[in-house]
């Protein structure tokens, strides 16, 4: 029973990781940039979600606005921070990205205060019992459901629409994609928008689960998401999803069985280091 409950808790956490890491994978696949500042969009989405919900009491609207604002901020990040330095070696963009993330954290602190924001009356806090007695918060169930739906929708868009196929072609061979008339700029804009909107979506869920939004909430997920995309075999969407869920479950079990020795994040990173020592190409590398 406990095992089942831990798996369930792990999948909840894994869903959040998956949403954040997907955006990183999209960016890495397209530009070979490790986009650390991605986590700032996760935090931004969380702030927007809480503020919109507190102002209107409309949760779907809070999600929608959080995704749009994070998505647009992602496109702006690409155009203003990365586009001008694309011809430089990748570490230049990495440094810019780290700087941008720190600047964003400080901006959140200055604008919204160091103590963070909470929901006035947090929604989806009811308890539901499933599978013969495992207790879930409604929000926990919804985050798994929402993640599954949104990832299925993205998979459909990517394989069944012309825009999706064009994006895949661009990842595979940008120059040839251009040769057939695909605008790299548009593909990059689309990818940053979608990836950042997913991060914003994840941010609102974390706000709901913790009932707290604070300036530094992105830092640990940021490092974990970077490690997850490495685990998943850099650039592989399926690998990223699997690695995110595996890490969520490992963390859940580790917290119970190793919790006296190590804290939650230490367990996660110990696991990542261990895996990368044994399989440096990632858990699910195809090539």
């Amino acid at each position, binding site marked *: 029973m406990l095992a089942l409950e831990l798996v369930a808790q792990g999948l909840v956490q894994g869903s959040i990781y998956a949403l954040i890491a997907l955006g990183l994978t999209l960016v890495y696949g397209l530009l070979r940039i490790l986009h650390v500042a991605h986590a700032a969009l996760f935090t931004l989405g969380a702030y927007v979600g809480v503020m919109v919900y507190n102002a209107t009491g409309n949760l779907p609207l809070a999600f929608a606005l959080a995704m749009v604002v994070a998505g647009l901020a992602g496109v702006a990040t690409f155009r203003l921070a990365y586009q001008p330095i694309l011809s430089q070696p990748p570490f230049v963009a990495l440094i810019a990205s780290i700087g941008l993330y720190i600047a964003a954290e400080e901006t959140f602190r200055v604008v919204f205060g160091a103590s963070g924001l909470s929901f006035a009356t947090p929604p989806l806090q009811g308890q539901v019992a499933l599978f013969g007695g495992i207790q879930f918060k409604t929000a926990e169930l919804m985050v798994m459901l929402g993640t599954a739906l949104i990832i299925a929708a993205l998979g459909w868009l990517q394989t069944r629409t012309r825009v999706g196929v064009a994006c*895949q072609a661009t990842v595979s061979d940008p120059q040839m994609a251009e040769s057939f008339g695909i605008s790299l700029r548009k593909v990059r804009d689309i990818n940053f928008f979608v990836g950042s909107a997913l991060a914003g979506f994840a941010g609102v869920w974390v706000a709901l689960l913790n009932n707290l939004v604070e300036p530094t909430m992105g830092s640990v997920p940021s490092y974990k998401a970077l490690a997850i995309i490495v685990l998943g075999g850099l650039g592989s969407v399926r690998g990223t999803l699997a690695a995110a869920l595996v890490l969520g479950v490992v963390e859940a079990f580790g917290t119970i069985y190793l919790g006296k020795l190590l804290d939650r994040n230490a367990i996660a990173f110990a696991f990542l280091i261990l895996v990368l020592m044994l399989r440096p190409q990632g858990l699910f590398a195809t090539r």
Partner: protein
Amino acid sequence: MLELQQLSCGYAAFQAVHELSLTLRPGTITGLLGANGAGKSSTLMCVAGHVARQAGHILFDGQDIGTLPATERVRRGISISPEGRRLFKDLSVEDNLRVGGVIHPARHFVRDRDRVLALFPRLGERLHSLAGNLSGGEQQMLAIGRALMARPRLIMIDELSLGLMPKVIDLCYQALRQLRSEGITVLLVEQNTERALAVADDICVLESGRTVWSGRAEDARNDPSLSAAYLGLH
């Protein structure tokens, strides 16, 4: 059609092609011949918009397209089957064709695809296979088919016969003749000189980035000094 005037191109400090002048006659096949490293592929990639033009002009329908981005050149009617084929390996055959025709409205896709499949029926049997899993011959057919999806007036094909079985080469050359009969102009880069001489209308021979011979293919066939010196024929 396409006219290159004193075209020089290359990568950064390296100049691959020097003052190449070449005029393609509409509805013909022009063979661009020469040894490895003679500048043939660079010429094609420069016309496609991927290798920087350093001097000279690229005229298409009388307009200089030398400064247009690659995305615009394909819309003017130039498409390429590049060196190494460069298929989208993790996409299906059908999706590769879809990307090839992405500048045209989606409702034309089925019609354009079926035209390619009529030319290369083999691709119809592999429609849902990943491009990376095709045989060499099928990959070459797909590279040409993908380029045709753009409905080009000029198609540039690099190393048509490289690494292919003779039977497949026959099939591809048959397709070239078919395209020519439909009025499409072909610029063909080939190492297999005999094959190129047999099908081409015009020939241009490059050596170290410079033109050493150009003219009608029949004259090239009858010029023993040319055959011996540059084309490795005896």
